[in-house]
């Protein structure tokens, strides 16, 4: 439900990161987002059919406050010459890494 979704978003420490280059690697994302705090895991978004990166990922921090800092300081800056977009995510669930490609 919507209420439940909002509750999850307000407590989440996971970010949806979009507008990445298809060539941007997990390592690069880790390097950038680690500047805001300890990164727990990164799940690369993959094309449903080719299973190759397709421009988005999920970044999960250990702490919500670190994720907040990533929204403040990383959102709108560049990685691989592309403007990174970050948004709150309610938390990664297996299967969601497969995008439209």
């Amino acid at each position: 439900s919507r209420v439940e979704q909002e509750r999850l978003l307000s407590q989440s420490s996971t970010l949806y990161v979009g507008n990445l280059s298809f060539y941007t690697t997990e390592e690069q994302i880790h390097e950038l987002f680690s500047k805001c705090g300890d990164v727990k895991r990164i799940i690369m978004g993959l094309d449903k059919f080719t299973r190759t990166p397709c421009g988005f990922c999920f970044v999960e921090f250990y702490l919500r406050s670190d994720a907040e800092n990533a929204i403040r300081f990383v959102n709108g800056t560049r990685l691989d010459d592309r403007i990174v977009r970050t948004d709150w995510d309610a938390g990664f669930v297996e299967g969601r890494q497969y995008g439209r490609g």
Partner: protein
Amino acid sequence: RRRVVSEQAEIEDRLESLIIRVGDKTSSSLESNLEGLASVLEADMNTYKSKILRILSECPIQMPEKCTIYSTLVGLLNAKNYNFGGEFVEQMVRNLKEALREGQWESARLIVRFISDMVNCHIVSASSLLQLYDSFIDAAMEQGVPQVRRDWYMYALLTALPWVGRELFEKKENDLERIMAAMEGYLRRRNTAHVAALRVWNCDTPHPQEEYLECLWAQVRKLRTDEWQERHIYRPYLAFDSILSEALQHNLPVILPPPHTASTQYPLPWVVFRMFDYTDCPEAGPLLPGTHSVERYLIEEHLHQIVTRHHNERKELATQLLAFPQRNKIPLEYMIVEVLFSELFHMPSPRYLEISYGCTLIELCKLQPSTMPQVLAQATELLYERIDTMNATCFDRFVSWFSYHLSNFQFRWSWDDWQNCLSLEKDHPKAKFVSEVFGKCLRLSYYKRVNEMVPECYSPLLPPKPEPYFKYQTEGGNSLPGATQVQALTELLRKKPTPEEVLELIQQLPNPLKDDDGDMEPSHNPLAIEVFVQTLLHLGSKSFTHTFAGLAKYHSVFKNICENEEAQICMLRQVYELWQHHPQFLGVVVDKMLKTQIVECCAVANWIFSRDMAPEFTRSYIWEILHLTIRKMNKHVVRLEKEVADARAKLRAAPSDSESSDDDPNRETGEKRRRTVSNKDTPKDGEEQPTEEMVERMEERLEAAQSDQKNLFLIVFQRFIMILSEHVVRCDTDGKDFNTFWYQWTVGRLQQVFMAHHEQVEKYSQTLETLLFTHDLDSNILDTFRQFQALRS
């Protein structure tokens, strides 16, 4: 009735918003705004007095840059309503006392400054302000208390003087002189051993790097020779002189500083960062105030306050910095850049996340593309030129900022200008800087990109392509010991075996540590570790996620074959061998191994100082790993400390069953406080009441953790001392100068450990002094410890 309540709330909100926004940009003049607001407040005074008092007393502290606007407003109110003025003064005094008691030093300082400014508006009498100053002077002269405490009282006074100096000079010249003389005496007798540890550059050319109190003292002294006339503070009260001079003044009550207690924390000293003087700025533009002019201090403080207020919104921060009120009278871009770098390089640590400064600088470049990028490039140039005297901590921050900045601007830089670094030794800070920047750029982009961005002649400084080095696949790899088992294990792992199956395979490997006749069982099997670690990590080398999956799945195998420290060091050596060309990967794997307790902190520390890592010793990533290791340990201890403290507090607050009535007011507030502290997991917390026994067990765990922490620091510092002492002795016997780049880097890294973890190291200061930093030590090494001790002396 509800309507009345909501109407009241509405009016209160409106008043609050009017007070908060006064002095912000409007079409009408500030004077008429102030006059209007004073009338509005005066009219509503009877109904909303407590609300008005509260907001008015908070604003000058929350928005210190508007200090004089609020003092004028209160002055006007006092002229209209003497009683209100009196109550306001009482409120400020209460706030000051509370801030002093609670150790909110910055608030307390701003209140003192505001009270001083109230003298200018005829709210507070000059003589009673002097009385307050005298009691601060007494606090600064007190014997047997830490210097940081005495310094604060001095600092609070010195920073207030630019506001009220002229008024006191006109009315109470003798008293002012007496206070100045007392300050001079204090400053002359002060210990400044900490300065060396806090300086960004260990050298005073081209600009002296002065200790904050000494610099401020020089600026205030200069102000005195100018007969206390400064040109920065905007003083709206001057326009209301006729009204204000009629008003009656209030006397401050006697305010006695609360006594020092062992648990009181005071602000640490710092060194004023300077990178520009007027010759760096364009000739045609406004002049940069000199280093000892009080305007330099006032403008810098104002800029720092803008940073404080907007540090979480980089766009707003950049906008506000560029909209600085007197922007046409100063070379604003230069001052902004200097202030932001002074925050970034602040020792021991910056106020805010390093990246927040980086992205603010990016915003500034975007907002002011005609000037900002050039000034920033000029700053970078200066920092690079002076990098050979920069401390190791700031060196790292500079590398990290610059590579990040480049990554946001297509890695464009005029590298040709820095070719002089190519003819220098590899450990020279300039060469080191360039190669570390390449390394960090590599992490944010990819090899080909970085390769293209730098001119070819820089290739000796370019790190190797970051990829795993799997020796079994190199030439002759087949004949390496364990090569067949590596192959077998690779095949096995592809079938996703259980940890037991893996263990069975590697346990068949012969142990090279086992000698033929001895029946002593070796502590570990290096060959088994080698085969397992190399193979598993190589198979997972595609990404962090792949590697983490392998570590998680075969966690029990690691635990089984890497039980003790020797085994763990052996394992780290294998991780290094595989990831030697990819420092980021190496760091992330070690970090994960620490988190999953495959390896212990002490093993990492001993590995870093081991002979195998000697060639890497001056590279930054090694120290990144050491610091993340120490931080891990510190976090663990801090978490346990908090747990114990919380549980203890709960135990104390908990009433025994008989008196748990709901109307006990103490209980109510205790409950509330707890809720605000840990609102995330309140429901659970509320239910679970710790028992004495549980708390004792927690304390035991904490003690064990503290003992581990102490041990880790002892290892780190002892290894530093050993490696440095050996170097000095070796140079001595060889008749060489010991002061090499290697030596400077290593001392710098030792200093960095003290600085980066000072709060935790502090707890073991005594032990370190008795066990390690003894008088017979080389004085250069001992100095780093003395400087650290002086931080809080």
